[in-house]
């Protein structure tokens, strides 16, 4: 079990890099946005993993229950708001991709750059 205690962090590392791979290696702008959202989810997982506490439960205090351990509420608050901000910023990114498609007729990164180079 000692090894499995870090499994969440390993998954964080793998998800982070899968998202980053899509961001740098994919030419398709829509795919890049999906990669960005995977990268973002990986960071959310890291925060929530750090908030977990052995033997704890969700931080909702029950009246009359003493000595109950709770997970850390602070990272949960940060991530709760970050999820909603994440979707709004992703929508802004998608809007820009839609406009690029209308102006250039393509959403492939290298084709867009080739068009820009042409005088």
């Amino acid at each position: 079990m000692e090894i499995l205690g870090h499994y969440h962090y390993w998954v964080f590392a793998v998800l982070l890099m899968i998202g980053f791979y899509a961001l740098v290696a994919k030419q398709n702008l829509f795919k890049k946005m999906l990669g960005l959202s995977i990268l973002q989810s990986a960071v959310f997982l890291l925060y929530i993993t750090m908030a977990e506490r052995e033997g704890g439960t969700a931080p909702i205090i029950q009246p009359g229950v003493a000595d109950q351990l709770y997970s850390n509420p602070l990272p949960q608050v940060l991530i709760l708001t970050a999820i909603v901000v994440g979707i709004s910023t992703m929508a802004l990114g998608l809007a820009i991709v839609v406009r690029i498609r209308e102006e250039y007729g393509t959403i492939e990164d290298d084709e867009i750059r080739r068009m820009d180079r042409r005088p």
Partner: protein
Amino acid sequence: MIVAVFGIFLLTLLVVTAIAIVRSSDLFSAVMLSGIFSLLMAANFFVLDAADVALTEAAVGAGVATVLLLGALALLPTDERQGNRHVGLAALTMAANITVIIYATHDVPPLGDPAAPAQQHVAAWYLAHTPELIDIPNVVTAVLASFRGYDTIGEVFVILIAGIGVLFVLSGGRDQLLPKRPEPTLNTALKHHLIPQVVGRLMIPFIILFGLYTQFHGEYGPGGGFQAGALVAAGLVLYSLIEGEQAALELTPPNLLFGLALGGALLYGAVGVIAMLLGGTFLDYSVLLSDPIAGQHLGIIVIELGVGLSVTGVMLTIYHAFASRVS
């Protein structure tokens, strides 16, 4: 033990889904897979004792985000062109990075360690003092709305600005900012499909009812303005998908939606200013009523309402900005 094994199973599925998203060349299936990814992530958050975050991820990530991605994809080519450059180099760099991060995790305290630095400091203070200072059961709501109210007002305005940004970007080449009501056309969404009609109409009232429950029960159970806003928006998006864009914009005109977004954010700010006028500091709800704890309750209910209105308004404004362009 069983929960731990289930958690590991979910995490492994997450990695498999993420790889499938990146590898799939059909963007439509990639979007569907990203909905599954969000749902798995929500289950994972729930296993990790983060009920509020799980509810948010399920409503926002799996619900609203999938619809927005599909709305954008309707305006884009759905196939990814094959043949990327530097794939090998990128994969090698990522593998090296994964190795370095995994090596670094040996210094991190294992999952659930009570002595971990993250569990010390303010977290223990919030858990110990919420009953006497705020007196609501859900500590996450107490921290979100009261202790860290400054943070949350910032987030609400970021969401509002992102919504305005989407309107500006998508209005390029047109003379008005908010989407126009489309002309009545024969192509009215799912109007002639019987099963989505019946099932959808049955679900909409319950989705909105659950959204309202989440809004007003957020102090006692998991929930609050962010989740409620996303749920109500999801219900209204379903209405738009079933009845068509025109009927949806007649029910909730773009001006009303943008008014909700702006009004919600300003309502939040107004609570802070009223607290200042009553002699307290910005967003200090204790001065709102003669009893400080009752004042905290009033302040939290009003600002959560502001957050809920603002999130509903922004999500629907963004959705209609995409959807009204498709026609």
